[in-house]
């Protein structure tokens, strides 16, 4: 009894948390594939089994993310922006005022007031530039695992100025840079800085943080090279909580609507 499940059905991954007393007891993610509902229910069964629970111990399943309406077992749904805000507000103990969320196919900037409610937000529009998809494509072209991007970025002195953040055009730009013999480390550092600049532009003057802490979450936030580039561009400290890919799923369990 007293367990809640939060499921974030995203474009790239399905993330699930099992929560008791507003603390994450179990979490897991799987890549998104056709049949999102059955993938999500497999996660639920996995949690119940591994934690030695019965289905009746689950009080509530809340779904969020683009695929939230696919989950018929969900008692509640909440939009991912609100879930993200709720999650970060709780996990930061109320200190968060700006969230930068980098997802598989979108990029969000969310401003919170002192009560943790959303005061404004901005999202990229139908473009994968600067999102997880952009990094995945870059990793494929560079033939380098994404997990190594942070470490490799630190090995470069200067970032390379990339002309395009477009996923399609960046491919040809990276290929031509590699052909010219530019080291991968510099290209990766350049990628980080071009994404960081894009985020800075999205923040603009209006959504730029005026006070309080800035948090980065979503899958790509686990890349220390991106974090460093973002702090360089913003000239502000950016924090990343542990398990940043699960803050939205966790926030969904806090939803009351």
């Amino acid at each position, binding site marked *: 009894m007293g367990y809640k499940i939060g499921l974030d059905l995203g474009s790239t991954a399905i993330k699930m948390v099992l929560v008791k007393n507003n603390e994450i007891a179990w979490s897991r993610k799987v890549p998104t594939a056709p049949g999102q509902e059955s993938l999500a229910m497999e996660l639920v069964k996995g949690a119940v089994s591994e934690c030695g629970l019965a289905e009746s111990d689950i009080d509530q399943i809340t779904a969020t993310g*683009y695929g939230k*309406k696919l989950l018929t077992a969900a008692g509640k749904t909440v939009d991912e922006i*609100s879930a993200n805000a709720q999650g970060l507000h709780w996990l930061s103990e109320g200190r968060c005022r700006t969230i930068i969320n980098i997802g598989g196919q*979108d990029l969000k900037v969310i401003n919170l007031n002192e009560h943790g*409610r*959303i005061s*404004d*937000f901005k999202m990229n529009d*139908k473009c994968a530039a600067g999102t997880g998809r952009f990094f995945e494509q870059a990793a494929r072209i560079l033939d380098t695992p994404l997990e190594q991007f942070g470490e490799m970025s630190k090995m470069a002195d200067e970032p390379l100025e990339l002309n395009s953040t477009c996923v399609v055009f960046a491919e040809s730009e990276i290929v031509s840079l590699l052909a010219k013999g530019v080291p991968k480390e510099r290209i990766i550092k350049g990628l980080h800085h071009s994404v960081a600049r894009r985020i800075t532009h999205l923040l603009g003057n*209006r959504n730029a943080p005026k006070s309080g802490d800035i948090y980065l979450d979503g899958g790509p936030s686990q890349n220390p090279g991106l974090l460093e580039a973002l702090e360089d561009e913003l000239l502000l400290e950016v924090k990343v909580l542990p398990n940043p890919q699960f803050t939205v799923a966790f926030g969904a369990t806090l939803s009351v609507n």
Partner: protein
Amino acid sequence: MRIYQKTWHSFSKLIDLKRMGQAPLIWFMVISNSFFFDDVEKWSAALEKALPVFGAREKKGPDIFLAGSPIFFPNLKMLHLLEEAGLNVVMDDLCSSERIFPGAAYFDDVSEHGLLKALAQRYHQGCLCPTFSDNDRRINNIIAPAHKDLYQGVVFHVLKGCHPFDLESLTLEARLKDLGFKFIKLETDYTSEDSQTLLTRLEAYRSTLAN
């Protein structure tokens, strides 16, 4: 002109019902769109018959002002999404909706010159689109009701390729946000594939209106 005055009188009653939240958005839009297809007197008579059908409704959510590019039947995607997100459109300035005709032409001078002047004033005052002049008047018409708390936020709809509205959204957003009012711009087209991403934005926008 007298026929249009009568028609405007009927239409303004429908607008009043909309302000009170009693005329559902989709019904209002479909009735407005039908104005383009029917004889004006028949349309007016049909509207008078329809008015008593609209009665008190439970209010769903925050009141908003819908602005931007027109929405024409059968492309009702935005309207469905607004209703699904629980946003109550009480005002709009779409040329396909409330501004299908910007009021009637009123005149004291019944000479040819007087009538022509009244007609010209009516059409110039409309300024339905950023491609016309005096954009400030249209922007002020959107902002003014916010000062009277007649709505909680603006949803600005931009049709892909409709660059005048796209560019104007920057001015309107800056002015509204400088005054502390809420604004969201949604760019879309006639396809349905972006429905979920739009709904996510509208649902999140709704939560900002409650804060």
